[in-house]
């Protein structure tokens, strides 16, 4: 990855470029540094991006942080993710919204907002990001220690760019987790191709002829994939691979059963 300039962003085109570069960064620190510049362009000071990955009953959160570290520590320690009203909002909605417009229902949520205001999120914006499947969802919190007018003004000016920003961050996590998953499970490119073929409901013979490997090798590979993913059959392997982000969700909802 070539190094990118770290100067302050001065124009809409530049902001657009910086957002489109996010996918090319390799480390979290690089993405966080670039994201800080973009948030400053929005006229705000803090951000947290949470990526929620659902795998069956299990939910997994990953974060990119551009705010006071104490706030993240407090948030995790008090398990506020369990009552966070913005997660609930992002699960149900796609529109960016002012944090003050999200209704608070419990005393716990009011305490959470009061603490957030003390740590750079006096007012803010919530930007949901949804992927092709319901398995991966992103929530971008943009915050400022100024009053709600600053956040309102920023949202009015940069609404579309904020959506793009959140989606690029979600894609970055998605790609990162896919690569990590392949490495950890010791799967290679042929395994991923075979999982995609299984997702298309290809028989082993069809997969062999389209990927250029012998039938016996395809069968042996499917057995190995099932063993590594700890599933009983190809169907379950595909479902687990989608859940782990190794392959994307099916584009053929009505494919041959």
């Amino acid at each position, binding site marked *: 990855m070539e190094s990118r300039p770290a100067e302050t962003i001065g124009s809409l085109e530049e902001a657009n470029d910086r957002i489109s570069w996010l996918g090319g960064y390799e480390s979290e620190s690089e993405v966080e540094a670039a994201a800080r510049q973009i948030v400053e362009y929005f006229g705000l000071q803090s951000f947290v991006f949470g990526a929620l990955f659902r795998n069956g009953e299990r939910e997994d959160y990953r974060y990119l942080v551009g705010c006071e570290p104490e706030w993240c520590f407090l948030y995790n320690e008090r398990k506020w993710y369990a009552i966070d009203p913005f997660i609930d909002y992002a699960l149900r909605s796609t529109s960016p919204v002012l944090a003050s417009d999200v209704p608070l229902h419990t005393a716990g949520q009011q305490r959470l907002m009061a603490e957030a205001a003390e740590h750079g999120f006096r007012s803010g914006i919530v930007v949901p990001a949804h992927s092709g499947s319901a398995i991966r969802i992103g929530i971008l919190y943009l915050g400022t220690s100024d009053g709600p007018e600053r956040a309102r003004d920023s949202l009015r000016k940069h609404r579309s760019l904020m959506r793009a920003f959140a989606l690029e961050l979600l894609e970055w996590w998605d790609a990162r987790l896919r690569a990590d998953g392949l490495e950890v499970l010791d799967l290679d*490119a*042929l395994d991923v191709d075979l999982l995609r073929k299984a997702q*298309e*409901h*290809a028989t082993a*013979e*069809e997969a*062999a*002829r*389209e*990927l*250029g*490997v*012998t*039938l*016996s090798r395809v069968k042996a590979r499917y057995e190995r994939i099932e063993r590594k993913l700890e599933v009983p059959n190809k169907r379950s392997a595909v479902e687990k691979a989608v859940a782990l982000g190794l392959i994307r969700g099916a*584009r*053929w909802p*009505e*494919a*041959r059963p």
Partner: protein
Amino acid sequence: MAGSSTLKLAGHALCLGIPLLAPLGVSLGVPWLSPLAVFGVLPFLSLLIGEDRSLPVAGLRRSPALLAYLDFLPRIYAAVWMGTLAWAAAYASRETPGTAGLAALAVSVGIASALAICTAHELMHRRSPADVLLARLMASACLYGHMPVEHFHHHATVGDVAAGATAPRGMSIYRFAPTDFLHGLGNAWAVERARLRRTRAGWWRNRALQDHALGLGLALSFFAGFGTAGLVVFIGQAVFAVFCFEVITYVHHYGLVRGENEEAGPQHAWAHHCWLTNCLTFNNTFQGDHHLRPGVPYYELHAMYGAPRLPASYLTMFCLALVPPLWRALMDPRLDALAQARARGMAMARQELPEWLRAGQCR
């Protein structure tokens, strides 16, 4: 020389000279220079240089600059070949060289186009979509649009006579070439039809159809741009290139039929690890390894144990295949010897094959 890895890596660039033989021949007043050089001189040069005993590029030898050079060579070949093709059509249109001149041009460019199919073969196995697209464009320009799809089918069915690509013992090249072309077309069509039915995609997503349509479009463009002479050169080079490729397929797999339940292996492709052929064809003689590891780039391939040996280099065998009685006289005794070795359960034990039947190997 044939053991030097550095020379071998530099030698891969020799392939760039093959397309240039066509304009060189015209400028020297020797329009048949390219076939004379390739089928007349190179077999003797191959004999002089000997077999490839260089090391494949692996491990610490993989410096980024070296990999960039090796990765870019097939792309550069594509550019040089396409330029030559356009030049030949423009020359034929401008100079009206007559029937013999047109034939010489078509054959000269056709030789480069046969090598272009070989180059496309290297590119189509890569994971980069741009390289795969380039491979499809190259196959289309040789009117061989179904080749990228069919080739993967071939990998899955190597050694299966019913699936094509393997000529049964006794079949001549003149029967094999048209039969295999049509067989390949049928295979590609069947693969794509199954894929499209499965994914509910429209008929226009059929890659074999797309690539043949592109070939037709290119032919029409040559006709529009360079007139009848340009079209004759375009079609002539394509027919010659496809024929050459079919001959090489014939040479690769003649008579090496895979038994029932037998796993595909190096014993299902003839080999002769000629240094010069390897330089010119992106290590195409390492078929056995390529069949086992289709995704591995050409510079990592090496010779395999168990590959039966051709009596001479590909270029020599190409010429011999055109004379069926001579071909059978040379190859059928080898098939008999292989069958005997197999009967004794030694087909995979290279050391136990007769010396004259063993393919050379890398250091």
